[in-house]
């Protein structure tokens, strides 16, 4: 049988479906007055340690919640459980050897287990990966990137998508600076090349450096979100 080909114009964004779900998540967060941080990093940048210290310091000032999406291990959730904050773990699809990011639908699946109206700030710990999470909005107010100085200076140039999408960069493991061959000025130059003037806080979970500053950043943002509501 003779067949002919026809062309059909589609013009549909590959991420449109995800973006629509992210928007719906965002609306839920806004209605509940919950400020949402999407926390991203490469594996081993010290996200969970920072999160532990944040919960430790902030739990009497701010009602925090955690949505844990790091597939590497359930250890993260276990480490955080002792703080008795609302915490839900989203297991990303194990197909193809594990997902490399959270998408809006995965986050949505975890929301019924979180009492959003009792959470001032929700921290979403994304999968440790410098490429994939950047593409997928989940309904967050801000993207905070944890970057360890052990990763070298040039990552902003190699992973511009991620660095460009960050609203704040926590330059972490600063206690190791004197032991490393890491050129901080050069790193900051690359960072500014990709995301000019992006906010940055120098942190160390070990010495406590920068944690006050980071915690007040979070507190101020959450308070502002509540005031707008």
């Amino acid at each position: 049988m003779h067949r002919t080909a026809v062309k059909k114009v589609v013009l549909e964004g590959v991420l449109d479906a995800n973006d629509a779900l992210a928007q719906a998540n965002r609306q839920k967060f806004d209605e509940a007055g919950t400020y949402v941080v999407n926390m991203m990093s490469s594996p081993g940048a010290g996200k969970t340690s920072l999160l532990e210290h944040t919960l430790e310091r902030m739990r009497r000032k701010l009602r925090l919640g955690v949505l844990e999406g790091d597939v590497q291990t359930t250890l993260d959730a276990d480490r955080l459980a002792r703080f008795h904050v609302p915490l839900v773990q989203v297991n990303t699809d194990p197909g193809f050897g594990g997902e490399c990011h959270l998408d809006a639908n995965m986050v949505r699946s975890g929301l019924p287990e979180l009492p959003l109206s009792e959470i001032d700030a929700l921290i979403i710990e994304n999968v440790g990966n410098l490429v994939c999470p950047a593409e997928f909005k989940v309904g967050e107010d801000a993207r905070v990137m944890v970057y360890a100085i052990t990763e070298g200076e040039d990552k902003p140039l190699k992973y511009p998508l991620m660095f460009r999408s960050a609203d704040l960069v926590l330059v972490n493991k600063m206690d190791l600076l004197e032991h490393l061959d890491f050129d901080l000025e050069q790193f900051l130059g690359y960072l500014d090349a990709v995301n000019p003037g992006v906010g940055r806080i120098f942190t160390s979970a070990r010495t406590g450096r920068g944690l006050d500053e980071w915690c007040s950043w979070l507190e101020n943002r959450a308070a502002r979100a509540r005031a707008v509501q």
Partner: protein
Amino acid sequence: MHELSIAQSVVEIASRHAGGRRVTRIYLKVGHLRQVVPSALAFSFELVSQGTPVEAAELDLEEVPAAGMCRVCGAESRLESFPLRCAACGGLDIELTSGEELYVESLELEEHPQETGS
């Protein structure tokens, strides 16, 4: 590997728009700033399209270079690398005009003869 998720979404979009017809070609536009690796996308596409109406379709990926307009002097520049800098005045305050595309532009569908010409 975000190419896998992108491929899944492309298959989903194409299948929906195909309306039961077989898809022979998918035209996809990908901005340079999206950091999509074409070979990884092609591989992922082959993997996830199996058993769908999109199986055996050709994935036609067009890469769109990054370009922007300078907010200071108004000049248009092609942007090859970071920092994104105006080629005319060297300014860094650039509004991107292309390079962030990521969409299915069109499909080529197989149609039975009696269905054509309508």
